[in-house]
C-alpha cells in the first residue's frame, strides 16, 4: 500500500456531515413508533401483542378473559417460563442451548425416581435434581469453552443424549406418578386473598421505592433524570398491572405459589443482569466477546456460569412441569417444550444475536406464547393448526428481531 504514504495535503475542512448522537429524544408519537420499530420499547411491543391476542380470542370465545381461564393460563406458562429465564441468559451471550427440553425432562425424572422409587424426601430430591441440572450445564459449558465447539452443536448432542438418559433413568415403567405433598403443592396451592394483596403492595412499594431512590441519587449527583411525567406514568402502569393481576387472580383461587416462584426467579435474574458487575459482563460478552476479554473480563467463566444457570433453570422448569402433570414420563420435556421456551423470550424482544434483551422477556414472552396456545385450546383447534400457528408466530418474532438488527446497522452506517 504505497499510496498511503503519499503526502497528499488533507482536503479542506468541512463541518462533520454525520449527525452526532443526539440528546435523549423528546417524547413524540413519531419517536415512539420509531422506538417500537427499533426494538427499544421491546416490552411495550410485546404488551401490545398480548393485548391483541387477548382481544382476538375474547371475541372468538367469551370464556377466554375469565378469572378461571387466566389463572389456568398463568399456571400453564410457569414451567416453560422458568426454562425461558435460563434461555434469556444464554441468548444474552449470543449462544443457544437446545438441550433445555431434554434437561428439564431428565431432571424431573431424577427427582421423581429419587422421591418415589428411592424414598427420598421431596426437598432433597428437588435439590438433587437442580444440582444435576447444574452439573449438566457445566459439562456442556466445558465443551463450548475449551474445545470452542459452537454451543448449537454441543447442546444439540445434549438434546439427544440427555433424552436417552431420561429414558434410562425412568426405567421399564416409563412413567412415574408423583404423590401428593410438597412437589405437587408447588403448582396446586394458592395464597389467600389477603396474602395476595400484601405481596402485590410490597412489590409495588419495592418497585416505586427503588426507582425513586435511584432518581434521588442522580439528582443529588447533578445528573440528568427522565422527565417526571414519564417516570410517574411508568410507575402508575406497573401499579395498575399488579393490582389488576392480583384482583383477577383473587376472583378465582388466588395468587398461585407457582406464579410467585416464577416472578421471583425473573426478578432475581433481572436484578443480576442489570444491576451487578456479573450482569454487565454478560451483556459485554454478548455484545463483543473480544472487547470483553481485552477489558479483563473472564469470558470463559461468564460462559460457564451461564450454561450452568441455563441447565439449572431447565431443571426447575422441568420440576414445575412434573408437578403440574402429577407425573414424569418419557415425553416429559419433549415435543414443543424446547421450542416454546426459546420462542417466548425471542417473541418478547430478546435478540438471538446476543447482547440485547431482558429477563422480563421470559415472563412476557411466556404469557404471549401461552395465551396463543391456551386460546387455541379453548377454540378446540386441531394440533395441525396449532403447530402451524405456533411456528408462524416464532418465525414472525425472529423476522422482527433480524429486521430490527438490520435497521440498527443501517442507521449506524448512515
Amino acid at each position: 500500500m504505497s499510496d498511503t504514504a503519499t503526502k497528499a495535503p488533507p482536503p479542506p475542512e468541512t463541518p462533520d456531515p454525520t449527525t452526532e448522537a443526539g440528546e435523549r429524544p423528546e417524547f413524540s408519537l413519531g419517536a415512539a413508533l420509531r422506538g417500537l420499530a427499533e426494538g427499544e420499547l421491546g416490552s411495550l411491543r410485546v404488551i401490545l401483542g398480548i393485548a391483541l391476542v387477548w382481544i382476538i380470542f375474547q371475541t372468538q370465545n367469551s370464556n377466554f378473559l375469565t378469572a378461571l381461564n387466566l389463572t389456568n393460563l398463568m399456571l400453564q406458562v410457569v414451567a416453560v417460563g422458568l426454562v425461558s429465564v435460563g434461555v434469556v441468559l444464554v441468548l444474552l451471550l449470543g449462544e443457544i442451548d437446545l438441550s433445555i427440553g431434554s434437561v428439564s425432562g431428565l431432571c424431573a425424572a431424577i427427582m421423581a425416581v429419587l422421591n418415589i422409587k428411592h424414598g427420598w424426601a421431596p426437598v432433597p430430591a428437588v435439590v438433587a435434581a437442580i444440582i444435576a441440572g447444574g452439573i449438566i450445564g457445566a459439562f456442556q459449558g466445558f465443551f463450548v469453552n475449551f474445545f470452542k465447539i459452537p454451543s448449537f452443536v454441543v447442546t444439540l448432542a445434549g438434546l439427544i443424549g440427555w433424552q436417552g438418559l431420561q429414558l434410562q433413568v425412568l426405567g421399564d415403567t416409563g412413567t412415574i406418578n408423583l404423590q401428593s405433598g410438597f412437589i405437587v403443592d408447588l403448582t396446586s396451592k394458592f395464597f389467600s386473598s389477603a396474602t395476595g394483596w400484601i405481596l402485590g403492595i410490597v412489590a409495588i412499594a419495592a418497585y416505586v421505592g427503588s426507582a425513586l431512590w435511584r432518581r434521588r441519587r442522580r439528582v443529588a449527583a447533578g445528573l440528568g433524570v427522565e422527565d417526571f411525567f414519564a417516570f410517574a406514568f411508568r410507575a402508575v402502569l406497573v401499579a395498575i398491572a399488579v393490582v389488576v393481576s392480583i384482583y383477577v387472580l383473587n376472583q378465582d383461587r388466588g395468587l398461585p405459589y407457582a406464579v410467585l416462584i416464577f416472578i421471583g426467579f425473573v426478578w432475581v435474574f433481572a436484578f443480576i443482569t442489570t444491576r451487578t458487575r456479573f450482569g454487565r459482563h454478560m451483556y459485554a460478552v454478548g455484545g463483543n466477546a473480544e472487547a470483553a476479554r481485552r477489558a479483563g473480563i473472564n469470558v470463559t467463566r461468564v460462559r460457564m456460569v451461564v450454561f450452568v444457570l441455563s441447565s439449572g433453570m431447565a431443571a426447575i422448569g422441568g420440576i414445575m412441569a412434573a408437578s403440574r402433570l402429577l407425573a414424569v414420563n418419557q415425553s416429559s420435556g419433549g415435543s414443543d417444550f424446547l421450542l416454546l421456551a426459546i420462542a417466548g423470550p425471542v417473541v418478547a424482544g430478546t435478540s438471538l444475536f446476543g447482547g440485547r434483551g431482558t429477563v422480563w422477556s421470559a415472563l412476557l414472552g411466556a404469557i404471549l406464547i401461552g395465551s396463543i396456545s391456551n386460546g387455541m385450546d379453548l377454540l378446540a383447534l386441531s394440533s395441525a393448526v396449532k403447530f402451524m400457528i405456533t411456528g408462524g408466530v416464532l418465525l414472525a418474532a425472529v423476522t422482527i428481531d433480524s429486521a430490527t438488527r438490520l435497521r440498527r446497522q443501517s442507521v449506524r452506517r448512515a
Partner: protein
Amino acid sequence: MTDATATKPAAQPKTPLLELRGVSKSFGAVRALTDVDFEVGPGEVVALVGDNGAGKSTLIKAISGIQPGDRYTARFEGNDVNLNTPQDATSLGIATVYQDLALADNLDVVENLFLGSEISGPGGELGLLDETRMEHKALDLLSQLAVTTIRNVRTEVGSLSGGQRQSVSIARSLLGEPKIVMLDEPTAALGVAQTRQVLDLITRLRERGLGVVVISHNLADVFEVADRIIVLRLGQRVATFDRETSTPDQVVAAITGASSNGQKGGQR
C-alpha cells in the same frame, strides 16, 4: 543492517519513560522484528510508521505484553522491567487502544468506559453497580478531554460515529491513569472532521504529560501530531526523524527503502 544504530542518536528524548532494546520476535520461520530499539518520553508523541508487515503492530503487541518479544530488555522510568503479559504492561501504566476492537456496541458510553473496571459495591461479581458515580466520572473525564461531541453518555456506542467511538476508546484507556498510551491506527477509516477530533485528543494527552505512541498510515496526521517519527521496515528500525526538521518525502523514502542505499539525507 546498521541503519538503526546509525540513526539512533538523532532524536533521543532526554529521559525516556519507556526504553526497549533489541526486541526480536519470530513467528515460526518469519522474523517479524529484528533487534528493534524503541523509546518514548513523557509528554512526547512518537509515531510508528512503516509499510504493511513492517512490524508496527507486532512491536505494539510486544510492548503491551499481548505477544511478548522473544528477546528484549525493557526499562521503565529507569528500572528494568518485564513485559511478558498484558498485566505487566497495565500495572506499569501502559495502556493500548485498539481500533474499534475494544468497544461493545450494545453498551452505552458509560458502560463501555468502565467495562471490566466497574465501580460497584461489595460482593465481588455480584456487587451492586454504582451507575451514578460511573456516569459522573465519565462526564468528568470527557469534559477534561474536551470531548464535546458526545452529548449523551447513555447513548449506545453502536450508534456513535467513528470519531466518537475512537474518543470513547481513548478516554477508556485513561481511566487506569496510565503513563503511556499506545494507539493503533486511531484515524483509519475516519472522516476529516472526525480525524480532527482524534488528533486534538492526542494533543491533549501530550499536554497531560503522557507518553503517546501512534501507529499510522497517514503521514499528514503523523506530521500534525508527532514529535518524533520512527520508521520500521521489514522488522527493523531503519530511521528516526524529528518532525521539526524533516519532510514527508524523507519519511516516505525511508518507509519504501528508497533511501537505504547509504544516503540517509532525512536523518540527522
